[in-house]
């Protein structure tokens, strides 16, 4: 049992079920990120933890105490909203201490808490300003200050960085991570940005259409996605997923891949149980960074397969060069070193790290477990 337990929770609006039996347990000090495309139910789940939305069935408990029917202010949680929701009629200082005031904290203590938080977030020079007189980043800090000052059991963040420009977003991301590391607080964080999810979290719940698709550490999610949705949602550029066929040769399973010319090439699969799929169709998932030039291949990889293919388009992106090609009839992307010399249209021998390749059942789109 964790600090925050979500067990078998569903949510319906009228006859429409928007969350289907969600089970997540969050331990103390964890940074859980809920990630998924728009409309998948992330905000709804967060609002249910906060108590702003009712729970249709199931149970949410914090520190072993059931929260069903408990008022938001009695849950000892704090929330940072996407729009920040700062009270426009109050100064920054009043915004930060409003919650303490409502909970009957005496004035001197409120001031102490406010000063502590303001110093930590470097907003002590803004305390007497109104939210309308702040920049986006400053508002974001104030919103965090309002959450931090309460010293809650769980912090809830609903896309707190989505209103900031790209640079500020990266800065604030680092700052939130630092804050989490120094305070050791428990955080549930909603985003639809998979990079934010990967960089911030200790664990990720990938959601789609009201289902939790996979719950795991960033590495688990990235390396062993449980289905095609997770595989393609997490990672940028997305994982290449294309039709292939298992062929057993020399007693080992190989993935038969057709390149641009329609000729099948066999890539040896390390996953021995795939031999049972001999002759059957699969969906093969290969991350762009595992398709490289032979010199750039991972030296620690046990199974490097060679793949001869036409180079479609090359896109130098500074740190890397992206190369598109056709695999299994679909577009695929390879992520090569920046200084690799490849030209559009030429035939090239790629190295594919098959240690990192994943196979999916084409019917269920679930990963074929090793």
């Amino acid at each position, binding site marked *: 049992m964790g600090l925050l337990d979500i067990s078998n929770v569903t949510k319906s609006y009228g006859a429409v079920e928007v969350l289907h039996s969600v089970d997540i347990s969050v331990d103390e000090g964890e940074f859980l990120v809920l990630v998924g495309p728009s409309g998948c139910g992330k905000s709804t789940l967060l*609002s249910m933890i*906060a*108590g*702003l939305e009712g729970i249709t069935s199931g149970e949410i408990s914090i520190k072993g105490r059931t929260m069903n029917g408990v*008022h*938001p*202010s009695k849950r000892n*949680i*704090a*929330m940072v*909203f*996407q*729009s920040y*929701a700062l*009270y*426009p*009629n109050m100064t920054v200082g009043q915004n930060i201490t*409003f*919650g303490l005031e*409502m*909970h009957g904290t005496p004035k001197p203590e409120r001031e102490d808490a406010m000063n502590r938080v303001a110093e930590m977030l470097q907003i002590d020079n803004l305390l007497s300003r109104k939210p309308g007189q702040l920049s986006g980043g400053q508002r974001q800090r104030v919103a965090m200050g*309002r959450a931090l000052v309460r010293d809650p059991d769980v912090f809830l963040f609903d896309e707190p960085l989505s209103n900031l420009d790209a640079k500020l977003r990266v800065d604030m991301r680092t700052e939130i991570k630092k804050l989490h590391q120094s305070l050791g607080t428990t955080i549930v964080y909603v985003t639809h940005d998979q990079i934010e999810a990967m960089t911030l979290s200790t664990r990720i719940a990938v959601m789609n259409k009201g289902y939790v698709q996979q719950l795991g550490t960033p590495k688990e999610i990235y390396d062993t996605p449980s289905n095609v949705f997770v595989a393609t949602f997490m990672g940028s550029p997305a994982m290449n997923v294309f039709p292939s066929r298992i062929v057993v040769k020399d007693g080992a399973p190989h993935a038969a891949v057709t390149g641009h010319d329609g000729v099948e090439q066999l890539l040896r699969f390390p996953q021995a149980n795939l031999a049972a799929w001999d002759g059957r169709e699969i969906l093969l998932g290969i991350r762009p960074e595992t398709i490289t030039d032979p010199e750039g291949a991972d030296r620690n990889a046990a199974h490097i397969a060679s793949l001869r293919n036409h180079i479609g388009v090359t896109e130098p992106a500074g740190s890397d060069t992206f190369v598109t090609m056709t695999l299994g009839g679909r577009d695929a992307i390879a992520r090569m070193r920046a200084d690799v010399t490849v030209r559009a249209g030429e035939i090239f021998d790629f190295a594919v790290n098959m240690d990192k390749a994943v196979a999916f059942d084409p019917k269920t789109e679930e990963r074929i477990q090793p």
Partner: protein
Amino acid sequence: MSGAVDTGVAIRTNRVTRTFIYLFLLLFALFYLLPLAVMLINSVKPLSEITGGNMMALPNVWTFEPWREAWSSAQIGVQPTGLRPYFINSILIVVPAVAISTIMGALNGYVLTKWRFRGDTILFGMLLFSCFIPFQIVLIPMARVLGMIGLAGSVPGLILVHVVYGLGFTTLYFRNYYSAFPTELVRAAQIDGAGFFRIFYRILLPLSGPIIVVTIIWQFTNIWNDFLFGSSFAGQASQPMTVALNNLVQSSTGVKAYNVHFAGAILAALPTLIVYIVSGRFFVRGLMAGSVKG
């Protein structure tokens, strides 16, 4: 350069249209100000100058006697009290009625937008419907109700009537204003531990300035200018200014004291005039804010 010629033409046509616009505006302003000017001029003339001369001419003898008479000694109905007691009645009716209907409208708007419940749109629809009921229809039922609850012919009775029939409008104003008000603020306040009323007066009310001004002006002018309810439901001692003005004009025996009537009419219009002048700016601003956001 052709550019220079073009701008020259632009400026010239601009000037011509401008002249027309100002002429037009001036004409309209005159049109609206003329009656007021006539009233003002004739309210400071002795009666003989009005009956024997030109309504438009400035007075030969300036006198404030008609104002004094209208205020404190003119014959209203049977009593020579002037308009003063009725002016006070109007104040006693208007101030509480405006205050109560505004506060209740704000609360209604708050509940209808931020504490939604099953059937809230139907309820709002019904409240809105009250804005479209012709008041003549409700006179007799209302009189019955006032009689039953023992408020017939009294100031509190009139306050009740005005509150009931103002509520549709005040609710409409506040509902539209608050529907554009970010719900996340209310949620944040809930998490912060503020209750229903605290959220209302610590967060919503301080941000409701423009719509409060609009509602107050609307309610004030409507209730102050009301004649139908005043003449239907008021008793001898609770008649508002409008009814008294009517009695003043109707009941004078013998010669009509036009100068006193003019002074009385201006006295009756003065409070709404002041409210407009003082807060007209906010009125326009508030209406715009409401319409753009709502």
